[in-house]
C-alpha cells in the first residue's frame, strides 16, 4: 500500500457542499480504486486519485468498502500450517 495516500473519511468531508453525491463515471473510478488498493496504479492513476477522491461521496464510500474487504481477506481468513507429514513425505521422496 502506498502510505502517502491518506484514507479519506466520509464524515469529515460530507459537510463540504461541493462534494458530488453521484459519480457519472463510477465504473472507471472503480478500476482506479482497485489499482490504488492493490498498489498497482500507474502514476497517472495515482494523480487522478489524489486530485479527485475527496470530491466524490460514492467514490469515497467505494474506496472504504473495497479497502475493508481487502483487509478482511488478508487478516481474517485463517491460515493453516502445512501438515508435518506432507513435509516429511516430500523430503524423504526427494532424498531417496
Amino acid at each position, binding site marked *: 500500500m502506498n502510505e502517502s495516500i491518506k484514507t479519506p473519511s466520509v464524515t469529515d468531508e460530507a459537510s463540504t457542499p461541493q462534494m458530488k453525491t453521484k459519480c457519472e463515471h463510477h465504473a472507471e473510478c*472503480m478500476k482506479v480504486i482497485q489499482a490504488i488498493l*492493490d498498489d498497482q496504479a500507474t502514476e497517472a492513476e495515482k494523480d487522478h486519485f489524489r486530485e479527485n477522491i475527496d470530491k466524490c461521496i460514492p467514490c469515497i464510500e467505494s474506496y472504504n468498502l473495497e479497502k*475493508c474487504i481487502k483487509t478482511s481477506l488478508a487478516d*481474517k481468513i485463517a491460515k493453516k500450517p502445512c501438515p508435518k507429514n506432507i513435509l516429511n*513425505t*516430500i*523430503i524423504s*521422496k*526427494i532424498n531417496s
Partner: protein
Amino acid sequence: MIVAMSETPAKNDNTDDLRYKIFNREFMPHIDSMYNFAFRLTMDEDDANDLVQDTYLKAFRFIKSFEQGTNAKAWLFRILKNSFINDYRKKSKEPSKVDYQEVETTYNSEEASDTTYTVDLRADAVQELIGDEVANALNALPVDFRTVIILCDIEGFTYEEMAKILDIPIGTVRSRLHRARNLLKEKLRSYASTMGYDS
C-alpha cells in the same frame, strides 16, 4: 526446520548440491502459502495434501528451469495451479462445477462489468464479519474468481506476477479481479444481511 539432504560445504559446481540448496532456500519457505492455496482451490484436505506434494516433487524435478533470482513463490504457484487444472479439477468434488468460460461469458459483457455496479454493502458491516464468514463467501465463488482474489488479496502478488501464474494478459487479470470482487461483495452482503445490517 527439516531440510532436504544435509548441506555439504558449498560446491556450486556440483549440480546436485545446488539443486538441494535452491530447494531448501527458495522453495521450502513457501510451503505454508502453497498448502493454503491448494486447500482453497480443492476445498479438500486430502486433495490439498496431494497437490502440494505433487507440486514440490515436480518443482524439484524441473528445478533446472527455475531461474535463480526470479520469484520462486510465483514459479511454485504457477506449477501448483497447472497441476490443479490438469490433475485435480477433473475429479473435483466441488458441487458447483461452473466452467470459467461459462462464467466469463455471463459476466464478460461490457454491460455486466462496466455499468455502475453497486452492491448495497457497507464497510462497517464487513468489519463486523468473522473470518469464517469471509472465508465462506470466498469459497462460494467459482474457482477462477476465487483464485485471483487469493493471489491478489491474500498472497499479495502483483498483477504482472498473477498474469504469469495464470497465463493470462494483465488486462484480463484486472477485469477478472474486478468481476471477482463484485461477486464477492454479493456473497458478503448475504452474510452482512443475516446480521441485521440489511437496511
